[in-house]
């Protein structure tokens, strides 16, 4: 762990780091690929909607001693769909099965009767409507739309519209992937799934905002210096919050992973699968998109700004000049001169391990120029 802690320190100082922004094209590509897969999966396989949305058949059994769990198992086997079984007050069972029409329900009725050891005629079959009616769905969409608009406005005010746009794209990216995974895995979509999706919606934005907050802070005085382009600063800000991002993701994912893999996989708590899968995929996608998609997108948007273009030109010109002067050491230095106290260029030099000779010398070099206080901001 202490290695990790040390890595944190180096990330903080920018001595090591991954060039997220520089290699963004690769990650954009990967994301587009995943998104396309998700959309294709969605188009081809469609979503397997649960009984709560589509209705289905309901079977009311006569008085029986068959347990709920057993009945559920039998019902799922005979129908091939998820079943919802409830025991009523008078010891009868109410079995609801999604995606069953009248013709199929007769067949299931016979099968159920056979398996549960009762007369088929005693089982009362009927069709049920959705409990998650259109109204609930419509209001949910409406709420979602209002929220999206408000959050974009809020982000545009608290940060800027480019960030708002990037956050929105990242959000759509996360939701598409999660829904696509549902189509591909074939799990039934239940209200739990929808709630899971909404949770992700909140989380994805939350995570993006944390990363953006750091970006905003680091790019505050960008125009006043000529060392770094916006992209480089963006990259640095991702790296400096990387430890936080990793830790938060691990902490958020562990309990959900417990539910999904241990609960659903080993202990047979299948009913948790619908919600924990959407949470797991969504949380992972949310954490990924904040770093690999949202921030590089902001950098892309920003670099089209004339001011930032000019800055980039100045920075490059200065670097060229420096290189020409042979002062190659100049470029990758000096923690203390700018808000960003180290730069991507240095990545290759001091590796993760090994004593750092550079820093030792640094104070000396620093002394001559820059802020006397040596304070970082």
């Amino acid at each position, binding site marked *: 762990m202490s290695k990790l802690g040390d890595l*944190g320190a180096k990330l903080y100082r920018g001595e090591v780091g991954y060039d997220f922004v520089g290699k963004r094209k690769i990650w954009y590509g990967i994301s587009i690929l995943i998104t396309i897969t998700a959309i294709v999966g969605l188009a081809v396989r469609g979503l397997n909607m649960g009984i709560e949305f589509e209705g289905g058949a309901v079977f009311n059994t006569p008085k029986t001693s068959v347990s709920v769990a057993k009945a559920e198992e039998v019902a799922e086997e005979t129908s091939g769909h998820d079943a919802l079984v409830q025991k009523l007050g008078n010891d009868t069972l*109410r079995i609801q099965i999604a995606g069953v029409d009248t013709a199929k329900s007769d067949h299931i009725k016979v099968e159920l009767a056979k398996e549960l050891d009762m007369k088929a005629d005693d089982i009362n079959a*009927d069709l049920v409507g959705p409990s998650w009616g*259109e109204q609930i769905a419509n209001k949910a969409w409406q709420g979602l739309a209002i929220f999206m608009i408000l959050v974009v406005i809020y982000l545009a005010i608290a940060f800027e519209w480019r960030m708002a746009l990037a956050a929105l794209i990242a959000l759509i990216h996360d939701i598409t992937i999660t829904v696509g995974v549902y189509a591909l895995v074939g799990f039934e979509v239940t209200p739990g799934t929808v*709630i899971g999706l909404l949770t992700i919606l909140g989380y994805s934005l939350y995570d993006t905002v944390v990363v953006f907050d750091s970006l905003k802070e680091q790019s505050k005085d960008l125009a006043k210096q000529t060392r770094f382009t916006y992209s480089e600063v963006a990259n640095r800000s991702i790296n400096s919050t990387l430890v936080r991002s990793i830790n938060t993701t691990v902490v958020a994912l562990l309990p959900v992973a417990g*539910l999904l893999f*241990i609960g659903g996989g080993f202990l047979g708590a299948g009913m948790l699968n619908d*919600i924990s899968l959407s949470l797991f995929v969504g949380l992972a996608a949310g954490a990924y998109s904040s770093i690999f998609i949202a921030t590089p997108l902001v950098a892309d948007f920003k670099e089209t700004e004339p001011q930032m273009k000019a800055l980039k030109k100045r920075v490059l010109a200065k670097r060229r000049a420096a290189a020409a002067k042979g002062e190659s050491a100049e470029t990758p230095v000096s923690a203390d001169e700018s808000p960003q106290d180290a730069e991507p260029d240095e990545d290759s030099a001091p590796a993760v391990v090994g004593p750092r000779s550079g*820093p030792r010398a640094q104070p*000396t070099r620093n002394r001559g120029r820059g802020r006397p206080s040596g304070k970082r901001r």
Partner: protein
Amino acid sequence: MDRENEKVAAPKKGRRQAAQGKPGRTLVLIMIALVALTGGMFLSGHTTPRLGIDLAGGTSITLEAKNEPGQKNAINKTNMNTAVDIINNRVNGLGVSEAEVQTQGDRNIIVNIPKGTNAKQAREQVGTTAQLYFRPVLAQQPSTGPAEKPKPKPSSSDKGDKDTEGDKGDKGDKGDKPKESEKPQDEATSPSGTPTTQGRSVTDGLKDEPTPTGTPTGDAKDNAAKDDADKGKGVKAPTPPDPTADLQDRFTKLDCTDEKARLKVKEGVKATDPVVACGKSGDGKGWDKFILGPSEVNGKEVDDAKAVYDTQGAAGWKVTMEFSGKGTKQFGDITGKLASKQPPQNEFGIVMDGEVVSAPYVKQALTTGQAEISGSFSQDEAKDLANILSYGALPLTFKEQSVQTVSAALGGEQLRAGLIAGAIGLALVIVYMVAYYRGLALIAIASLGVSAALTYTIMTLLGPTIKFALNLPAVCGAIVAIGITADSFIVYFERIRDEVREGRTLRPAVERAWPRARRTILVSDFVSFLAAAVLFVVTVGKVQGFAFTLGLTTLLDVVVVFFFTKPLMTIMARKKFFAGGGKWSGLDPKRLGAKPPLRRSRAAATAAPVDSTPKEA
């Protein structure tokens, strides 16, 4: 020196400095809050949260649509779906009770209500059709029993009495009150028969009715005064209504004290015809009967209804309604027309499901689109009525077919397996935190514990108060909340460690890191809270329940970080274990690869202390 640093660290945030100065006090405060909540929980007798129907089972009500005479094809898919939506709104009035409503077959609706809900109340809410009409009153009489014959003439003395009472402002107000309690009994039973007079007295009782808007007192007085004026007129020219003979006949024969007769009178009524109807008199015991004109305003035009306690008019609980645009116009028209008439024809009956719930009189056209219903409502009755009115009338009449208990849809074993899995996940979180943050993990785990305790007690307390029911999605939402809550600590810890890496000692680092961490936490939590608030306001049913959980956990996150984690951190920073940067504190400067303060390094220049050889081990 530390002090100074603190000031430097948070120059703008003067107000927080107090909190920094007295971290102990804040901690004590939140502990008191926690103890109070826990105490409240035990006092209330509910020590576990109310569970949703998927986790605990509940009651299942099956309703069957009844064919109304005259509307043969009313039972169709559209109407059934509309009914489901309306019933859903009613039973989920507060949005967090997690009841489920669905159709079964062609003409049944199943309503599942979680355990611990007041099933009787729910059944009333579910079964009430809530066809609401505003009809002008053509005639009105008490109906006290079979023996009682409507007396043809008003006893003017009674009238006089009434009036005098009405005269005195306060008295007038009181006039309302008695309506609800015993007084009205008098009125009703001492049937000074004429439709006219009778109507009058009842009206007095109902005074609060369509007051144009809020100010009940003034209105009540006005009304009383108005009364007088009217009174005189009324005496002179009672102008008895002229309903058709048949109607008059039915009216005369109607005995509202007979339940069967009451049911019968409700049958087959059409909004467009004049009708006879019954209504409870003020005390809720006696009955009045009415002849009512065709409906002038339909209850569909009620946009919103609220239960309000009338403190000024002393009328007790009443229901205020707001009309839609169309309803406002209609209501303005009818009140304009009625205002010019004499009692009781200046009254209109508010008729719900064939019964007159209130018969206020009108003294002027009311164009603000607001109306009130008063009656002998208890708080619950008023709230239920408001709830029902808000969501409109059912397009069909339903009969309760069966009421049964249902078991949880999720097997107990499965649930246990799920909980075990969740616990394993949590244990892993703790292991990870300890491994990475060492001593700091103690603070994180304590904070998570406080957060969990607060969430649990508040959810438990909300069960009986607002019918909050915890269902499986909510449990999962709470699990994700662990991540969001832990993130706040992680953001803060990382900031502190960054400050330590800058070479600061712990106490200034803790204070300096806080403003920045705080901003991040607030900005990001705001997004979560915005999502929760919007979804809670706009949506219905399960989504609303989820939004509530999300909002609650987000708020608690902020509360815990501000009032627990931060003060605890401040106190811990004074302890030797953390301040000394012990190996296990999670804040060991060497381990973090801290630089010594640059000043020193400059002074000692190449002597290059500690930090240049960070320990990799």
